């Protein structure tokens, strides 16, 4: 079974966001595999170890993304592909077209991605890729069982659980609870250095910049207003509880 994992490198979720010259500053920031994509990598490894085949992790991103791809190789993926993002429009339409073009040139049975990225958070790319490739998809998956030419997935839909059966090839996006991603082992890290790592450009994908023009553009970036610390209530627990309910009615008028 051949598996493709869509991967994005993101800020660690404990990082603060600082703006500099109208952009998000990357100075001193710790980067990680997008946490939802990490579940996708782990699931790919579990599937391959059971059914055989190979795992290719693919990303559209800047040079620094290579580190995240190497981590995925160290976890157990077999090959990595980094598609340079320089000439690719910065929105989901453009990125998904580049990814679909790569995937469409190969033969994958299962494509896995994260439910969304913790930076941009739009959750579009994997579903768009599925549509562009004419594959069915199941998003927000908390359990995945592959059985020959079909797969059964549990989908988290705002707390409800749907059981969805799809014919392969298909795209799945990982939700929390799907698995417990492993840490790369030391031998894993050593082996990763020898695994195939391809760097591709638009020319390698037979795409032109015109085909990858973005449909949306950022106009402005801002930080949320700083929240002021409020007040700590005083008195016994019972007094504080009564005071709080009183304040919610009279001061903030939300009850």
């Amino acid at each position, binding site marked *: 079974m051949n598996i493709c994992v869509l991967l994005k490198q993101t800020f660690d979720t404990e990082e603060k966001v600082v703006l500099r010259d109208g952009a998000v500053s990357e100075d001193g920031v710790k980067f990680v595999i997008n946490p939802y994509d990490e579940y996708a990598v782990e699931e790919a490894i579990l599937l391959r170890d059971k059914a055989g085949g190979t795992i290719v992790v693919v990303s559209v991103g800047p040079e620094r993304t290579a580190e995240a791809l190497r981590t995925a190789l160290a976890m157990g993926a077999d090959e990595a592909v980094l598609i340079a993002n320089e000439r690719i429009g910065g929105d989901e*339409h453009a990125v998904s077209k580049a990814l679909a073009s790569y995937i469409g040139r190969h033969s994958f049975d299962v494509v896995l991605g994260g439910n969304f990225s913790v930076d941009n958070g739009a959750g579009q790319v994997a579903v768009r890729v599925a549509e562009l490739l004419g594959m069915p998809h199941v998003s927000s998956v908390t359990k995945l069982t592959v059985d020959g030419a079909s797969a059964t997935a549990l989908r988290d839909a705002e707390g409800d659980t749907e059981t*969805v059966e799809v014919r392969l090839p298909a795209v799945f996006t990982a939700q929390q609870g799907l698995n417990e991603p492993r840490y790369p082992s030391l031998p894993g890290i050593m082996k990763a250095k020898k695994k195939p790592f391809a760097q591709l450009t638009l020319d390698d994908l037979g795409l032109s910049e015109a085909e990858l023009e973005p449909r949306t553009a950022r106009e402005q970036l801002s930080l949320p207003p700083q929240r002021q610390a409020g007040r700590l209530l005083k008195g016994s627990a019972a007094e504080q509880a009564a005071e709080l309910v009183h304040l919610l009615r009279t001061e903030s008028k939300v009850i």
Partner: protein
Amino acid sequence: MSQTYVVVAEARGGKLRQVTLEAVQAARSAKREEDRVAAVLIGHAVEPLAAELAGYTDGPVHVVDHPDLELYNPETYATALEAALESLAPSAVFLGHTAIGRDLAPAIAARLGAGQISDVIAIQRDGGGEEASFTRPLYAGKAFETKRFVGDGVRVVTVRPNNFPAAEPAPAPGAVVSVAYSAPSDLRTVVKDVVRKMSGKVDLTEAKIVVSGGRGVKSAEGFKPLEELAETLGAAVGASRGACDAGYCDYALQIGQTGKVVTPEIYIACGISGAIQHLAGMSQSRVIIAINKDPEAPIFKVADYGIVGDLFEVVPLLTAEFRKVLV
């Protein structure tokens, strides 16, 4: 020339979802004066809701009603939506940023070769300009960006629940138009079963009040007093990553940069220290209340009201106080 903005409606439990009326309002604020708002409703036995929905749109409501559409299925819904949109020739399509909207919007955007702006919380249209701009969170709310569409294609927008007021009824209701459903020729997706764990409960992202527990709750059993408080307030229960990782509750409840972002009127954090990744998911709430034993907990830095104390003592007292004033 007048353009059509289409809202893709959602029904749940035999009712239109609140976020659908919010999406109608969002479409109204994005469109120009001369444009109209139409809607699409997909499901089974949803005709009565279509008539209700038409009270909020000045354009028509296209209904695709078929037994095959009783449950959400990405393939059948995308096919039905494509059919319903065809004669409406929309310039924009608005959906809720919900379990269905998040899944259906990028699918239809890809089919139409359209741009999509996801999880929109505000819309600006300045000086009668031709184009609206859309504000959305990045890093779950650690930053915000304002985006515009480029080019002439269809615009797809998903709207975050709880951020736009519900639309008022339109002066003249739209017409209800039935659209025939024809199944995809090669259906590869089958929804076998749905377990409705959330029926009768308040959805986390749509809740006006959220009561949330962290590691301080100590066990699954420890969520009991929080659930009682939530029930008293008609609130939803949420949790921090710490509580989910420790197995006290389901990941579906997690609030934060991983998990869900919530923006209720009142957020009550119980035994949550306030890690950066959690704060990203809740700090846009209107009023934040923190209950924590540790007076140094970072959660107090964003809380409007803080109670330093044991949540197992404070929460039941709060429940009792709210009961006094809410009866």
